[in-house]
């Protein structure tokens, strides 16, 4: 224990002094901050943190072990995190990882890691060098950060009509005046000055907006449930954990129009009767975090957050929370656990977040895009929102186009267009298409023959697909579909939280069987076992991760039964 004697706790004291409540919920922020000056989370450091926050050491250890961005052994001062998600993998990310690892093998100041998906898929292959997102890495490039590639910008944004992305790329996201000049805070002003909370909820219900984070639950109804729940404290949570392979729309909104996200949260707070909101942004989005933190502080200074917003009686503030490397923390209840300073284990439902959410209080949790759409609706009215899209899927939607497409990027288009029309907007396919992953890693594959599929909740549901997080990932004939399936299987086994048995073991066994299949060594019995695993995960897992962990692979096996050679030996 001599380490304890020599460890200078000065930096820790400064970190702790910045936190207003020294308890369990401060744990993950303190751990993330403390490992910066100290390099990593040593025993002595954790002893001091445990004492200050009164968290048992075994639990702190459990938390660190859960999150990939928390380190309890020495790591480099610098990090190169190479994305090996399915989109990057098909343009050589594994070779890049190999090369960079070799380059730094003897250099203890730089740690090289792979990340299952950095959600920079529009700039694949990508990496995160310390806090800088790098994209379009040339496979031939050397491994030093400067030579890997350039910092990526917001990325390409397409679409003929732009509602939610109209400011993205055209305003300075750091500048609140830019935002205000382009109708910023008009919605908040309208809500606070002309509407009562129930009016806001009514307008939201009339708009027909449903959650755009994957579960498609009606937003107005969610707000109403939270507003009506018996409690003196309520919370708004903005889900900016975006980690699903192929998804990057929320990053574009958070980095391109941060005030709009805050405006949506504030309106939600007004409607629901919440005084506090949290925005949880994945740890691998440092740039989005910086932009949002600046926006929060500026908005507070200018009276758009804090007490008596715009001179009204309404008080609301927002706290930014960083994720720490766990896809599962995008699941709403796992996200609450994470904010509360725990391992990201999803909770059993019921009870639902609108009655028992963050800190067990009624909570309305919404996706970033949902909240931006909410601000748009309150500014322009439900009728205007319904003027586009279909009856059951009104409005515009952001789609994430990646893979073998001429212009990858975020496309804002009305619900109801076909995949073919969207692909055309993206400049068409690169090469001869083979397969399209629709919805995300948790989505399903479609064939190039099925491009007439209409992109709306109702049409996709009818056809047995889901919109997921708006992913369209194209794989052409030059790429090996089997590798994509392996990459998906690996993603889920890496990201399963390990709570429920079907997913904890099922994602592992699924990965093993696909690995065998890629090597041509899987036999008929293995595929039957895989069917059983998929059925079990889908029908008995606790949360959406396990429920959908076999969906994409299952759909591929159904569409292309011969994708793997079966070993009949």
């Amino acid at each position, binding site marked *: 224990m001599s380490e304890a004697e020599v460890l200078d706790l000065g930096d820790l004291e400064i970190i702790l002094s910045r936190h207003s409540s020294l308890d369990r919920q401060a744990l993950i922020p303190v751990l993330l901050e403390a490992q910066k000056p100290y390099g990593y989370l040593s025993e002595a450091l954790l002893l001091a943190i445990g004492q200050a926050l009164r968290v*048992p050491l075994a639990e702190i250890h459990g938390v660190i072990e859960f999150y990939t961005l928390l380190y309890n052994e020495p790591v480099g001062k610098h990090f190169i995190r190479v994305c090996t998600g399915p989109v990057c993998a098909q343009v050589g990310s594994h070779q890049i990882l190999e090369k960079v690892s070799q380059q730094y093998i003897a250099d203890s100041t730089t740690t090289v890691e792979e990340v299952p998906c950095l959600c920079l898929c529009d700039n694949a292959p990508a990496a995160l060098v310390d806090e800088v997102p790098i994209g379009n890495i040339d496979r031939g490039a050397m491994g030093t950060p400067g030579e890997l590639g350039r910092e990526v910008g917001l990325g390409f944004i397409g679409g003929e009509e732009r509602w939610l992305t109209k400011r993205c790329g055209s305003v300075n996201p750091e500048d609140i005046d830019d935002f205000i000049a382009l109708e910023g805070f008009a919605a908040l002003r309208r809500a606070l000055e002309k509407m009562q909370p129930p009016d806001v909820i009514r307008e939201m219900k009339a708009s027909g907006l449903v959650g755009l984070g994957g579960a498609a639950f009606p937003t107005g109804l969610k707000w109403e449930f939270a507003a009506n729940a018996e409690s003196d404290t309520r919370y708004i949570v903005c889900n900016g954990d975006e980690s699903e392979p192929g998804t990057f729309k929320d990053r574009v909104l958070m980095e391109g129009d941060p005030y709009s996200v805050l405006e949506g949260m504030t309106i939600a707070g007004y409607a629901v009767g919440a005084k506090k909101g949290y925005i949880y942004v994945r740890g691998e989005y440092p740039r989005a975090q910086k932009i949002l933190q600046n926006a929060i502080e500026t908005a507070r200074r200018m009276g758009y957050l804090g007490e008596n917003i715009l001179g009204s009686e309404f008080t609301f503030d927002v706290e930014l929370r960083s994720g720490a490397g766990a896809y599962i923390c995008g699941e709403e209840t796992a996200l609450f656990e994470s904010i509360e300073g725990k391992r990201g284990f999803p909770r059993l439902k019921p009870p639902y977040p609108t009655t028992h959410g963050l800190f067990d209080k009624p909570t309305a949790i919404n996706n970033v895009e949902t909240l931006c759409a909410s601000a748009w609706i309150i500014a322009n009215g439900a009728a205007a929102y319904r003027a586009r899209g279909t009856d059951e899927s009104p409005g515009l939607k952001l789609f994430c186009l990646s893979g073998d497409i001429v212009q990858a990027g975020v496309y804002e288009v009305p619900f109801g267009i076909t995949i073919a029309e969207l692909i055309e907007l993206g400049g068409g396919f690169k090469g001869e298409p083979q397969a399209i992953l629709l919805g995300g890693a948790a989505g399903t594959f479609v064939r190039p023959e099925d491009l007439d599929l209409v992109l709306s909740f109702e049409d996709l549901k009818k056809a047995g697909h889901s919109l997921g997080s708006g992913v369209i990932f194209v794989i052409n004939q030059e790429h090996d579909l089997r590798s994509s399936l392996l990459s998906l299987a690996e993603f889920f086994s890496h990201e399963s939280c390990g709570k429920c048995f079907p997913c904890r073991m099922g994602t592992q066994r699924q990965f093993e069987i696909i690995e065998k299949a890629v090597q041509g060594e899987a036999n008929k019995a293995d595929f039957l076992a895989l069917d059983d695993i998929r059925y079990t995960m889908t029908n008995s897992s606790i949360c959406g991760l396990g429920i959908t962990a076999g969906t994409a692979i299952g759909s591929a096996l159904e569409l292309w039964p011969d994708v793997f050679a079966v070993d009949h030996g």
Partner: protein
Amino acid sequence: METIALEIDGKRVTVASGSTILAAAEKAGTDIPVLCYFEHTSSKGLCRLCVVEVEGATTMQPACVALAQNDSIIQTRSENIDRIRRTILEMLASTVDLSESPDLLEMLLDYDAVPERFQGGKQLLPDLIDDNPVFIRDYAKCVMCWRCVQVCAEDAQYAFAINFGGRGFETSIATFFGKAMPETTCVFCGQCVGVCPSGALKAKTEHLLELGALPEEIFSETRMRRKSKRRRT
């Protein structure tokens, strides 16, 4: 007391409202297999062996935590239910050593489980840990029921000596930095040993007896260890 009535495998039962499906089934005399459920710890719904079909519900329900609803019609065995239970049991038996989990061994037979179909898959078979005079930890037998963590924490002892390590498939039961039990906040109450269903946590005496040690050897072993600990502190 408010009561509800429902049908389980064709048999009608009346239970207090707020009862779980598992409790209702028990009253109906129907056995539903459980693993993570335990009377003396809060229910977590982890293992999913207890799933049942509730007519009209879109998904299977974990009987240990799902509440019984008035007029529900519930099936506790079907081809689909058995398929899930069998697969979970097969995956579990191919991952850890179930030789001292008699209930699970019986279930494997009951559901015609063939764990060999996952042969070659990753297993979790860490070395036995013998680091204190009171109990041994043989996590190769751990079925991840969470009970030990629960009783060590808020469900009983508030000692917080053990928690989780790893994530996903590799989730394990662990101490702070993997320290030996005497170096943790463990108070050697033995509650974890008492609730462990799998033989993973076992009293030291029992362990030594199984190894064939003589009573006096056992006594000296545990006593010496105790002494040495006292000397150190």
